[in-house]
């Protein structure tokens, strides 16, 4: 990486573009120095849109209403790459990170070990009523699960934990729903399901970095 020569806000708390040569690189300000870049006395962790759909959404200028104090329910935490950036962003908030697959969950625990604002929950996102009882309420629901019934999962979790007026950001993966059906038709059906409970504010395709993925922002 070239030397960092400047910085500008990415429009979200603790989230910036680092200017390095001709590139602008998304990053989160962090209190964890490991793998972090220092610039003017602060530390920043680069956040690649290749491995993170949320990073991709921010770079595509979606208005993601995450704040320093947000209380986030994160479904599909996987091995924690994106979760740690959300943890950086909500420096005065909390992330309830739900993952069910044992193997990535092990990596998740390692990644969030020092981050007290991440609460791991090993459970199936399809059955929010069965989560261990850590979550009181959240104002932001982020979801990235590779399951067929993605919109229904978002609705079920929102109904149980999301405050009225809270936001939902969901990365819909068409190929997790059907590998034969036309992605457009799938997206439309999922958006219809979301619309039945939420107000859909914005939809953005994540192509070309994330093939057949659509990001949807809603308000509850």
């Amino acid at each position, binding site marked *: 990486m070239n030397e960092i020569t400047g910085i500008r806000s990415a429009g979200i708390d603790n989230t910036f573009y680092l200017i390095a040569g001709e590139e602008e690189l998304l990053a989160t300000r962090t209190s964890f120095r490991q793998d972090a870049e220092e610039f003017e006395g602060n530390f920043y962790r680069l956040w690649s849109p290749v491995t993170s759909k949320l990073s991709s959404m921010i770079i595509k200028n979606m208005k993601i209403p995450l704040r320093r104090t947000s209380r986030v329910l994160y479904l599909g935490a996987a091995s924690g790459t994106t979760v740690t950036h959300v943890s950086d962003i909500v420096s005065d908030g909390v992330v309830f990170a739900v993952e069910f697959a044992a193997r990535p*969950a092990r990596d998740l625990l390692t990644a969030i070990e020092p981050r007290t604002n991440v609460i791991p929950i090993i459970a199936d996102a399809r059955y929010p009523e069965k989560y261990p009882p850590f*979550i009181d309420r959240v104002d932001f629901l982020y979801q990235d699960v590779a399951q067929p019934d993605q919109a229904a999962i978002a609705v079920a979790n929102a109904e149980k934990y999301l405050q009225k007026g809270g936001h939902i950001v969901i990365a819909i993966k068409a190929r997790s729903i059907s590998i034969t059906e036309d992605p457009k038709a799938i997206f439309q059906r999922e958006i219809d399901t979301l619309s039945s409970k939420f107000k859909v504010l914005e939809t953005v395709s994540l192509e070309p970095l994330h093939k057949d993925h659509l990001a949807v922002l809603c308000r509850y």
Partner: protein
Amino acid sequence: MNVWFGEEAGDGWKIAGTTPEELAAYASRAESTRPTGSPDFERIAIDAGLCSSPAEYLRLMHDTAMLVARSRIQALLSARDADIVQSIKALDTIHDAYNEVSERLTEWYGIHYPDRKARPQEIITSILSLAPGEVPPGAPLTAGDIAAMQGFAKVAQALFDERKSLEQYIMACMDEVAPNLSDVLGPLLGARLIARAGGLERLAKLPAGSIQVMGAGEALFKHIREGTPSPKHGFIYRHPMISGAPKRLRGKMSRMIAGRATIAARVDAYSGERLDLGSDVRARATRLRGGQRRPKA
């Protein structure tokens, strides 16, 4: 009503403990009956004296959740182990049943078609395509006979199909639980070793020598009792690189593969990293075979 740190009794909140360990023991079992309204667990915890600040609340919840998560992951992985053990046993049962049924079917078919020799799958296909009224070269067939043989053949087919499904399930389990062992030995052989050892963690604790002879069974006991030559290979002998190797190389090959399998099992059990031990095994096998050839000029 209960939350992760305790439950509401008639006269206020009853705290389940003060350390993350005590709280995790409670939270793991607690039903998720979230209080109605817009609850604020932090407020309740501070009021109940569990902690004195929001930061302290967060740390305690984090530490507790980490413990709950770890024990849940442990349970999931040992359930996977148990399912692998069960499904390998199921696979063997299905395998035996399929062999029995298809042997029986071949014999039954043979009294009507004594001239046709075929493999079980071909015989199943032939039986399923029999049409009523066919006059076989052997014993005559009524429509009822055909229906009876076809019912039996369908069971044989169901057993055959189930064998494939179980194999795929075992492969998926192995890919989740022990990808490295799967890579070195193939998923079915790897699963068989896990099943014999009684779980991945137990397998990971065994020395390479034990893994090499695991499943040798009778031959090993005979070696101990009667001093016959030590068996060179147990289940591992089924590995194509060993069974396919020249006889003189099989001992070395099975030692090498058992060694790599031991490492793979340990990585799977303790770190969970995905290494590329498969290439390593292939490279070592090539060297072993090469070492037996004339050295290059």
